């Protein structure tokens, strides 16, 4: 089955809010050998983008968008639980959202993808304040901190976080995903080692940083 057809089937299942069908499709493709990176990059992420676009254009309501997000969230949890990758000692990534950012699905994708690539991952999700993230970096001592950011309103708190992290842990490698605006990147750039352009790019860049 070609990937576009798989995407079409998955979107149709999401549109119906059909959890069992969505999960069954993923299980079926998994049994047929579909790699996780293709599942993430060619099916799950494009499907979520489609639902986000449909909400923006008012073709679907926010509940339909949340239903799709929740199904994908469960699939990512299933993938995380059943993953059989070898975790290399000494490569730890801490993954989560910047302060004030509530859209945490990108960080879930990154957590799974990094684990798939052999990283030990500490995933904290969203809604963590600056001080707590800084303290947690001291506790978990990651080699890499992967932050995801979507909303413009998070810039202030993100800059505060990055300044504190750089002052406290100058050796920490920091990656930020979710920002494409060049002028926003320019503001954060003095504190960031790499900006992830996509999930695939982020995983590759993490490997080069560590």
């Amino acid at each position: 089955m070609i990937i576009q057809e798989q995407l079409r089937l998955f979107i149709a299942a999401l549109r119906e809010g059909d959890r069992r069908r969505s999960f069954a499709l993923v299980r079926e493709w998994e049994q047929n050998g579909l790699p996780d990176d293709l599942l993430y990059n060619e099916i799950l992420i494009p499907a979520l983008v489609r639902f986000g676009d449909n909400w923006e254009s008012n073709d679907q309501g926010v509940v339909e968008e949340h239903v799709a997000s929740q199904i994908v969230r469960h699939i990512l949890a299933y993938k995380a639980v059943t993953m059989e990758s070898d975790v290399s000692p000494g490569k730890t990534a801490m993954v989560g959202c910047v302060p004030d950012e509530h859209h945490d699905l990108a960080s879930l994708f990154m957590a799974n993808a990094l684990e798939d690539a052999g990283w030990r991952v500490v995933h904290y999700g969203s809604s963590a304040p600056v001080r707590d993230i800084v303290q947690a970096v001291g506790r978990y001592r990651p080699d890499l901190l992967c932050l995801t950011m979507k909303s413009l309103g998070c810039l202030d708190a993100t800059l505060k976080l990055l300044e504190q992290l750089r002052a406290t842990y100058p050796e920490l490698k920091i990656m930020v995903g979710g920002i494409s605006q060049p002028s926003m990147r320019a503001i954060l750039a003095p504190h960031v080692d790499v900006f992830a352009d996509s999930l695939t790019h982020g995983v590759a860049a993490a490997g080069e940083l560590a």
Partner: protein
Amino acid sequence: MNHPGETLTFSAIAQADIETFEKQKEKIVTAVTDHLFRCTALSDALSDPEHARIARECVKIFTENFLTTVKYQLPEALLDYVAWLRGFLASRSFPPSFIPHLIAGMRNAVHAFLEEGRSDDICAALRTLRLGELQRISEVRA
């Protein structure tokens, strides 16, 4: 006429004025919301509860994003956000004049809550932004 993105700049706005804006943010949000709900051109649209809810949320987020982009000198990011907002509101049958009214409300509020003379540079940026939106509306109508 230039596209507003070519002329919008925040470089004249003093740090002290941004700090005052931040301190007065809640009052500004309330004043802008009141302005929109008093505006006769929007009364039909905002009589719908869902439109009214979206309008209130728009004021809060626009104010936050305006403050952030002014603070960090990011006029392009504000224009990107306004472009997104334009599409979002159009797909929900908001009148095209909603964003110009929103900006006008913010100009009034900034003028009211910042000391005399301190609001001029912020108001000038908002005026440029509003003119750009009005220009877009007239281009679409033409």
